[in-house]
């Protein structure tokens, strides 16, 4: 891992802040995500984890600071530009196309990746490569049997899997997952962890996660976000041993 | 100078009238998320009810009865019709009220005919308030503005000083929480919808005696009111007051100005060239005063899509 230090970070945040009115929700976050690592952001409720994701993915622009994706500035760009630059995200609250089939949900993203975003002059059924790739993603997230069903009719954990699948379709190398296992049972969580592990192979992952067992089994490094700033960034083991972190966060929940 | 004073007065009174109608619309939207397309029809209904009642019982009785009747109709719509389509989303609520607007307009035509009716202010209000530069200013215009101002003072006091008003404001922010605290929110919604309708009805009853009362008055004012809420920001009372006055002033000034694009080009010595183009170039502002609000809306959309006082979405 020491060699990666000299590498260009996949995602680089420097002095990122965000204020809503008088309240500064994010107070100067500096963070480097190395290419290929799986990185978790943990922190108590209201620490600003989702806000941080929203700033990175372009939901709204930061008040100040700089965000680089593979060395390219993406600060304050619109979501679709950031996505095209190679960053895809999932949502904490399932955010899918409820009235489209599961297959269609995934195909929308695959089409974007193939640059036929506004294709009007060819029937979609003849686009063989698009359809094959969609079927492949469908297979990978374990939803092959449900491809023709409406996304709104899926079970909760299936919808979460679809949510992850959709972030893969656009071919982004940096994946942001916002609480992918929230609300899942123990078995479902275990399956989701395996799914995330397999689909993020060779990609960079940044995820918000509450479940420490997920963090331990999945992530290379962890950053602790408390009151809008990063308290510490380290390996899961050392983070859990960090006294400051224990006091600020783990202590109050673990005890 | 004379022109400026008269236009300002006209603009402000017209703006206050617009606010009388748009306030209810934006209050209802802010609380319930329902855009009531039939809101301007309530305005028209107010004028016609006042006309029908006043022809028998006199102007003042009409002025009192009209908002009550219209308010009751509004409550009935909120109670019996809107819940039926609520599950299908706000677009269906909009469509339902759109259909109601159509029905109200056609019913008016059915009973009163497809032409203006003779709804007049009483003779004892028909005098001039004062005269500026030799021309008399009708008192009734001031009366319209005065009714609007009094109404808002009352509404403001109700919202800020009474228990019900506080519940209403709480329900606007967090309906579920207000309900959990034991307030009868469906009742509050019905009351607010009725009040909004009654305000529009009062507006119609007052204004109908001055402006023409005909079956088109609903949609004609309606489109302007919709422009007001887009410009002001839906759900913002302050925004709709600002936008109402702005559009009132713009419209009343435009009526008296013979500016044209050719004139503008004339300032740069291109007047003759522009005049030779004709069309849009030589169109005088006064003849397109009806277009002003829509043009203003497009400009606001470009500069501040959320409206002057609206929250960006």
């Amino acid at each position, binding site marked *: 891992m020491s060699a990666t230090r000299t590498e260009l970070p996949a995602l680089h945040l420097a002095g990122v802040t965000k204020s809503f009115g008088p309240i500064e929700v994010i107070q100067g976050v500096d963070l480097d995500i190395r290419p290929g690592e799986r990185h978790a952001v943990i922190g108590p409720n209201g620490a600003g984890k989702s806000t941080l994701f929203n700033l990175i993915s372009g939901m709204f622009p930061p008040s100040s600071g700089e965000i680089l994706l593979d060395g390219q500035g993406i600060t304050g760009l619109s*979501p*679709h530009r950031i*996505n095209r630059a190679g960053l*895809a*995200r999932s949502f904490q609250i399932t*955010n899918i*196309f*409820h*009235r*489209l089939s599961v297959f*269609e949900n995934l*195909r*929308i*993203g695959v*089409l*974007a*990746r193939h640059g036929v*975003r*506004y*294709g*009007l002059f*060819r029937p979609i*059924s003849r*686009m063989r490569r*698009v359809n094959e790739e969609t079927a492949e993603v469908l297979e990978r997230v374990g939803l092959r049997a449900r491809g023709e069903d409406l996304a709104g009719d899926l079970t909760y954990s299936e919808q979460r899997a679809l949510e992850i699948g*959709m972030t893969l379709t*656009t071919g982004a190398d940096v994946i942001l997952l916002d609480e992918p296992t929230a609300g899942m049972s123990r078995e479902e969580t275990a399956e989701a962890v395996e799914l995330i592990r397999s689909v993020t192979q060779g990609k960079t992952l940044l995820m918000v996660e509450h479940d420490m067992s997920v963090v331990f089994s999945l992530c290379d490094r962890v950053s602790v976000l408390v009151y809008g700033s990063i308290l510490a960034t380290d390996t899961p083991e050392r983070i859990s041993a960090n006294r400051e972190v224990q006091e600020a966060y783990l202590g109050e929940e673990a005890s | 100078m004379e022109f400026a004073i008269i236009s300002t007065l006209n603009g402000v009174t017209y703006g206050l009238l617009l606010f009388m109608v748009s306030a209810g619309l934006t209050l209802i939207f802010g609380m319930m998320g329902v*855009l009531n397309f039939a809101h301007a029809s309530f305005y028209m209904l107010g004028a016609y009810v006042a006309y029908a009642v006043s022809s028998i019982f006199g102007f003042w009785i009409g002025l009192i009865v009209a908002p009550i009747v219209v308010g009751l109709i509004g409550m009935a719509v909120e109670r019996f019709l809107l819940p*039926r389509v609520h*599950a299908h*989303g*706000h*677009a269906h609520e*909009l*469509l*339902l009220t759109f*259909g*109601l607007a*159509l*029905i109200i307009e*056609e*019913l008016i*035509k*059915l*009973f009163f*005919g497809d032409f203006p009716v003779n709804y007049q202010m009483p003779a004892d209000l028909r005098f001039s308030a004062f005269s500026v530069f030799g021309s008399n200013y009708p008192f009734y215009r001031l009366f319209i503005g005065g009714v609007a101002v009094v109404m808002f003072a009352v509404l403001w006091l109700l919202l800020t000083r009474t228990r019900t008003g506080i519940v209403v404001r709480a329900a606007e922010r967090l309906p579920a929480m207000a309900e959990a605290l034991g307030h009868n929110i469906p009742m509050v919604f019905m009351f607010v919808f009725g009040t909004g309708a009654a305000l529009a009805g009062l507006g119609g009853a007052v204004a109908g005696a001055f402006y023409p009362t005909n079956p088109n008055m609903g949609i004609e004012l309606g*489109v302007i009111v*919709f422009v007001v*809420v*887009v410009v002001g920001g839906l759900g913002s009372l302050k925004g709709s007051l600002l936008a109402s006055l702005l559009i009132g002033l713009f419209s009343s000034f435009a009526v008296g100005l013979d500016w044209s694009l050719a004139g503008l080009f004339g300032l740069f010595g291109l007047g003759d060239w522009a005049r030779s183009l004709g*069309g*849009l170039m030589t*169109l005088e502002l006064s003849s*397109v005063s*009806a*277009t002003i609000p*829509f*043009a203003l809306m*497009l400009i606001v*959309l470009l500069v501040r899509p959320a409206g002057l006082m609206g929250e960006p979405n």
Partner: protein
Amino acid sequence: MASMRTILILAAILLLLVAVPPFLGIAWQNALVNVLIASLFALAFNLLIGQAGLLSFGHAAYFGIGAFAALHLMIAVEDGFDFPTPLLPVAGAAAGLLVGIVAGYFATMRSGVYFALVTLAIAELFHSLAPHLQGVFGGESGVSSMRMPWQGIVFGSIIEVYYLTLGWVLICGLALWTYTRTPFGRLTLALRDNEQRVRFLGYDAHAAKVIVFAISAMFSGVAGALLAISNETANYSLFATDVSAQVVLQTFVGGSTVFFGPVVGAAAFTLFSFLVSDLTRSWVFYQGLIFVLVMLFAPTGIGGVVQFHARHRRQLDRSRLAGPYALALLGGLLIAGGVVYLTETVAVLFGQGYAVRMRDAVDGLPNYDLFGISWNPVSILTWLLPLVLVAVGGVILVRARRSIAGFWDRVGRSDGPVETKAAAPGGPA
């Protein structure tokens, strides 16, 4: 996928549309031209609401623009410009597309109810400006021209106009249907469902919405151009709110969730207005009433109800459903009878003709004629009849609805043909 059955039905309709009109009278041919134009307009409108989830209250603007563009081209042809008459609607398409891009840019900056209001205001902008623009819109009197012969076709008779219209409507209808099978067509549906997610998948949602809007405006422009070719004239009243309102009513009564639903609504309303407009002044009132009833009791429209039955045809137990459905029809007819009677009575009693007779009458209110019978306005029977009709019809209808709902509940389709749970077509309001 289009089933064999659907294809056969479409082929039969097509055959009728081609073969029958020559044997009809001129009035009927004219009515059919209007049906076709209204159908195309409704299909173009439904591209926005049915597929993109954008509710426009101002589609008259693009319809009207198309008409004026075609007329200006017709005038140019009259003056010697060499342009084939059958291709005139291209002018409408181009004008609709251009204006649609600009208007769509503004309108799609907001979503939900704002979008509806902005479209309404844009149409009103045209409506208020057009009478003052002599050159483009011909002032208050409008623009007129004449169809010029082309390649031996005179375009003098209505049947020629009919076939020209039919050809264009079929081509455009097919194009709009094909649209739904393209990548962009799928993106349109995704926009309706969840615009935010579309943006995070790398699409510029605003640009996409502008394109959908412009395409809808383009086909509306073709419809307007066809009207201009048929009427050879147009004025600013084409921009009026009632034109915009008509297409909304037709589309939703026909059913916006089914591709051909709007055509059903457009055809039904246009034919009805042709048939009854001589009989009643209250046609628009009935339209509004029908629309509100559809919104309240069958939000997916005629098309949605038909589609529901087609989907569940295996569970359709004809022997058990025929009774309740016939009862529902009877109840509906009784109510309709009562309402029509009341409406027409009001129209007569509050009409100007009756006011004159009332003044001249010696004592009391004079009798009036309706449906070929003379009625006494102060007789109890006169008012009891409609009330009884409505009451009896209401009771029957409620009963029938209950047993129909009961049937669909038993076969496990709680989302019966009326009040289906099919999601609202609207955008995120």
